[in-house]
């Protein structure tokens, strides 16, 4: 599948924003002043906003995007839209309510945390529910998304905490745990997801298997069409291996080392959050680039 920049930015930033929102909701970091409270919530809202804005860039008709809220009964994309809007509104209320004291109401906060999780889950389910893309259609896919969102949120929260409260953050340990668990889930997912293929073959796609192996002789048109452009993206194996190394190093290993070693340095934690985001973007690029769609069986793919 084509790694569209807008979708990489959308899933990474809004995931991180909702991850941070969940941590704020649970009251895991304290703001020393109302200004810091505004910054905490502002960072979460800005990330969510940037992500959602980027996702609308992907649309042919962004001005009708509100219609995407109507089919929550059947569509994960619609659920994602409804939950993202709802969570954002409640987060705004939570932030406003807690302004004076520098921390929010715990009950509203728990709602923010649960809704944030549900939003991240729905984003992942847009992909995980597609039977046509074996790589995505795996039970661990939503856990990978939630893992990155929560561990990223923890790293970011630790950085904000250290900046606001002078150096030390108690969230460094949980952030480390989050990164390690995410790494484990991602490793299993990378190995398993799509390993068995979609179950479809050129033979089943054409129904000509009884004649023997089916090969493409001529494509339907001389030049690449939208289907091939959108779903025919292939990445060389050696490039994928290199990029995976990059992504694990940037998203997990470096932030983990920095979070662990630098309990005292807020600059280091900020750097950890930045490398993490870049690493997640690389991993999202691979999430798309390595995914194969059954339609390509009609265009010469073997599986």
């Amino acid at each position, binding site marked *: *599948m084509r790694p569209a920049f807008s979708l990489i930015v959308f899933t990474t930033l809004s995931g991180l924003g909702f991850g941070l929102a969940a941590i704020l909701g649970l009251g895991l970091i304290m703001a020393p002043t109302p200004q810091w409270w505004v910054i905490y919530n502002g960072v979460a809202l800005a990330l969510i906003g940037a992500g959602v804005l980027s996702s609308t860039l*992907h*649309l*042919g*008709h*962004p001005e*009708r*995007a509100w*219609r*995407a*809220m*109507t*089919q929550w*009964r*059947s*569509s*994960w*994309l*619609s659920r994602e*839209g409804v939950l993202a809007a709802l969570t954002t509104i409640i987060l705004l209320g939570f932030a406003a309510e807690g302004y004076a004291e520098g921390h929010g109401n715990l009950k509203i906060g728990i709602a923010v945390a649960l809704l944030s999780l549900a939003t991240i889950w729905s984003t992942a389910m*847009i992909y995980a*529910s*597609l*039977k*046509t*893309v074996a790589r995505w259609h795996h039970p661990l896919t939503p856990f990978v998304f939630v893992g990155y969102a929560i561990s990223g949120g923890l790293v970011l929260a630790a950085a904000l905490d250290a900046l606001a409260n002078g150096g030390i953050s108690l969230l460094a340990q949980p952030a480390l745990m989050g990164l390690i668990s995410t790494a484990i889930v991602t490793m299993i997912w990378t190995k398993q997801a799509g390993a068995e293929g*979609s*179950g*479809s073959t*050129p033979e*089943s*796609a*054409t*129904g*000509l*298997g*009884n*004649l*023997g*192996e*089916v*090969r*493409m*002789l*001529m*494509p*339907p*048109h*001389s*030049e*690449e*069409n*939208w*289907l091939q452009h*959108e*779903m025919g993206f292939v990445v060389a194996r050696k490039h994928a291996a290199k990029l995976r190394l990059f992504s694990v190093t940037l998203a997990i290993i470096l932030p983990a080392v920095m979070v662990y070693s630098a309990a005292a340095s807020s600059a280091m934690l900020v750097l950890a959050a930045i490398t993490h985001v870049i690493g997640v973007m690389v991993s999202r690029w691979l999430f798309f680039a390595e995914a194969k*769609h*059954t*339609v390509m069986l*009609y265009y010469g793919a073997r599986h």
Partner: protein
Amino acid sequence: MTDMPAPSEKKLGLVIDLDICVGCQACVVNCKEWNTAGYGAPLSDVNAYGDNPSGSWLNRVHTFEAGKGAEARVVHFPKSCLHCEDAPCVPVCPTGASYKRAEDGIVLVNEDWCIGCGLCAWSCPYGAREMDPAEGVMKKCTLCVDRIYNDTLDEEDQIPACVRTCPTSARHFGDLGDPNSDVSKLVAERGGFDLMPEQNTKPVNKYLPPRPRRQAADDDTSVDLVALAKTDEPSGFWSWLDKTLDRL
């Protein structure tokens, strides 16, 4: 609403005969011709006369080779939306633009609601949906809904454009929900099949397999074309003439 309707009794669709399709692309062209002026926005092209033309089409003809050696067959393979009974492209739509008609099972896109997110095309295993490059909305085969119920057309024209135009009658249109319809009988007779049955989409459209060869092409009966093409070396007078002329 993108909730699926209860399975309709009437299941309109196409039956495509892979035995006789000659890959002439007439259905592809007539489909575009009819639909670019009919249902919804025109089917646009990008760079139509340049060196990298592309555009949206509702029907494309692929060509495959199946089997090896003497038994290998070239099969032309027209493909448009199969109007699946369990169409995965419908429930994923966030706007309700993608829907399946309760009365006859035709799967359509309401282009005024479509936001062009492309998710329905991702969920279709067959590549039957294409984003229109100019309009930013999803395009797909309408089963020529604006022909088949259109009383202003002559009766013989009240069938899909691709079916009407096919010079070899490789495409048939009818009600596959009715076991006594011509198309259902054809499917039963010829062993019509589903594409990618393992995707559980329950396509309404069926494909008819290439017929078996009349004669098995084993080594005894096959003709050695290379041997036939060989001419005898000239001899006698002709050989002398040949050589003399060469020498001159």
